[in-house]
Each structure stands twice: as C-alpha cells, then as structure tokens.
C-alpha cells in the first residue's frame, strides 16, 4: 500500500498519543512486509508468523521510542530485526531456510534464457541465505525490503558507514559465490 507522507505523519502522531485505531492501521500497513522480512532472513513460515506477531507486541511496548515521523520504517524494522536476532540466539541449532519458489513474470526472454535466469536467481537465493546473519540482514533490508541506506542503518542499529561496509562485504561474498558456481563473472 502506498502511504502518503501526510498520512504517515498523522499515523505517527496518533500512535504516540496511544490511539488503538492507529495501531490497527500500523498492522495493516506493515504485517505483510514484516512477515516477508522474516522469511527472507531465513525463518520458516510458522516461525515467521510468530515473529511477526512478536514484533508488533514489542512495537506496542516501545511506542514511546517512536520520536520522529520519518523514523517509522527504521523503527518497525529495527524492532523486527531485534526479535529475529533474539530468536537466532535462543535457537542456535535452527538453520536458515530460504523462501519457497521463484516466480518470474513472463517477459521478452526466450525459454532457454528464462531457464538460465531462473537458475541464476535460485543460486543467488541460496547464496543470500548462507550469508552471516548481519550481512544477510543488510542485503535483505536494502535490496529486498527497499529501505534507504539511512533507514536500513537505523533498522540495523549501526552507523551508515558500518552498514555500507556490511553491504559491500555481503556483495563481495555473493559475487564470488555466484561466479564460482556460474563459471561466469557477474
């Protein structure tokens, strides 16, 4: 859902005032994003649902920390990221699982090209899930959840420089993994 800046400001103001309707609105806007974020971080479907709920419960408890209208994205993803991090800490034996199938819309590519492209995406998906947690989170926040560097750095609770460094390290690893499997330099 596209959300105008004005409505976002009003939502944040109402949330800070403790308005329940605003809380429900926040759920409508973000529940799909947070669920998919959890899935992309490597949690299973069931765990992702639980962690999405936990994230919102934590959000209700930390509404006082929501200070600026522009910080809404960073705030909610920061909470979700912390919930996910705590889950990994408590379940050290759990393995990251990647999101199910890949669905590419029909384009101008021929059948053969499309198969090759799908394979490449499949390899990239597996490489992302094998990244260390912090690097995976950086890639997911910026490239897959489409947060700006500033928002994503806030969500990861690090300085922008540190976040960019994580992104660079992640891209380097991904490039080397895809290249070695592909025999092709990306």
């Amino acid at each position: 859902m596209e959300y105008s800046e004005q409505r976002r400001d009003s939502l944040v103001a109402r949330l800070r005032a403790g308005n329940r309707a605003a809380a429900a609105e926040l759920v409508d806007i973000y529940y799909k994003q947070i669920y998919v974020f959890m899935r992309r971080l490597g949690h299973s479907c069931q765990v992702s649902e639980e962690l999405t709920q936990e994230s919102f419960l934590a959000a209700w408890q930390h509404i006082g920390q929501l200070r600026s209208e522009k910080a809404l994205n960073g705030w909610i993803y920061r909470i979700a990221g912390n919930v996910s991090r705590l889950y990994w800490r408590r379940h050290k034996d759990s393995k990251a699982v990647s999101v199910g199938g890949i669905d590419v819309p029909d384009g101008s590519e021929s059948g053969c090209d499309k198969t090759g492209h799908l394979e490449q995406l499949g390899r990239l998906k597996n490489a992302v899930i094998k990244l260390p947690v912090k690097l995976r989170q950086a890639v997911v926040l910026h490239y897959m959840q489409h947060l700006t560097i500033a928002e994503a750095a806030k969500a990861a609770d690090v300085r922008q420089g540190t976040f960019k460094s994580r992104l660079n390290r992640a891209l380097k690893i991904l490039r080397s993994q895809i290249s070695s499997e592909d025999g092709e330099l990306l």
Partner: protein
Amino acid sequence: MREEKLEKLLNELADATTEPVHPHLAEDIKHQIPPQLSPHRGGMDTVNIIIDLRINKLTAAAAIIVTMILCASFFGSRSLEGDSIYQDSKLLIKYCLEGIDADRSNVLTAKSRYEYLAKRVKDIVYYGDSIDPKDDNAVLIQWKLSDGKYRVVFGDLREKTVSAEELIKLQARMLQKKAE
C-alpha cells in the same frame, strides 16, 4: 557494472520471492493490541535494556536496587560506615537467588531499622543474622528504654514493650528453639 548487475538481480529476487501471507495474521495481531497503548512506561525501558543483556528479571531488579543504594551512598543520604553496603548487597543477592521470600524480606527491613536506630539509642542488639527468619516470634531487635523496660521487634515486624523478665523468657525460648 558487475556490482550493478548483482544489485539488479537482488531486486529481481525480491520481487520473485514474495510469499502469500496467512489471511488471519493481521486479525490475530490486532486482537493483541493492548486496551491502553501507553507511550510512557516509567522505568520499563531501563529494565528492558538490562533484560536485553540476557539476565533474568530478578537479577536485573537486584542490579537496579544495588545501583540505587550505591547512588544514595554517593550523594550522602546513606552511610557507608560499618560495611552496610556490602552487607545489603550480600543480602539482596541471596534474596534474589532464593526467590521472593517474605521472611527474608522482613529480615532486610529489620536490618535497615536497626541501622537507623543504632545511631540514636543505646543498648540495642540485632539478632537477624542468627535467628530462623520463618519464626514470627523470634526477637529480631531489642533495645532498652529509659524506664528500664525493653522494646522488642519480632520476626513478623511486630513491636512490643516488655519487662526484663519477659525479655529473658523470650530469649530463653529462642535459645531452646535453636538447640532443637
């Protein structure tokens, strides 16, 4: 260019891996919205930060109390004499490890009372370290009054003025119980 291609692929991957969400998830979450959303939770943020350090709530509470005692001592509202901070901290840690125990709580309260009175009255005796904290009738503190009688604080924090004879009986009972 190579990096751009990888970034483009990652963006494509995001679009290609969007999963359908359980239809009831949003409703389930909305049911859990608390009736009163309070933006100000006094002190809870401090507790949450300490809990985030992966220590349990009781230990977090003990850490906060000990810090408050130390601050009070630092700013002069509590005496550092007689290693009371050390004793208080020891009792608090023991208290936390043993869980919430009303009897120990009484002993802690009585000790604070004793420390307060010790500077103001003479002939005061504290038995908190040697009595059974579960014994409501055990004498925790005693001190002599100006009329020759004694004021006694019991295990359940009751207070009573007794004569010298009554005090001897109470002490004899305590010694007998200890011997058993």
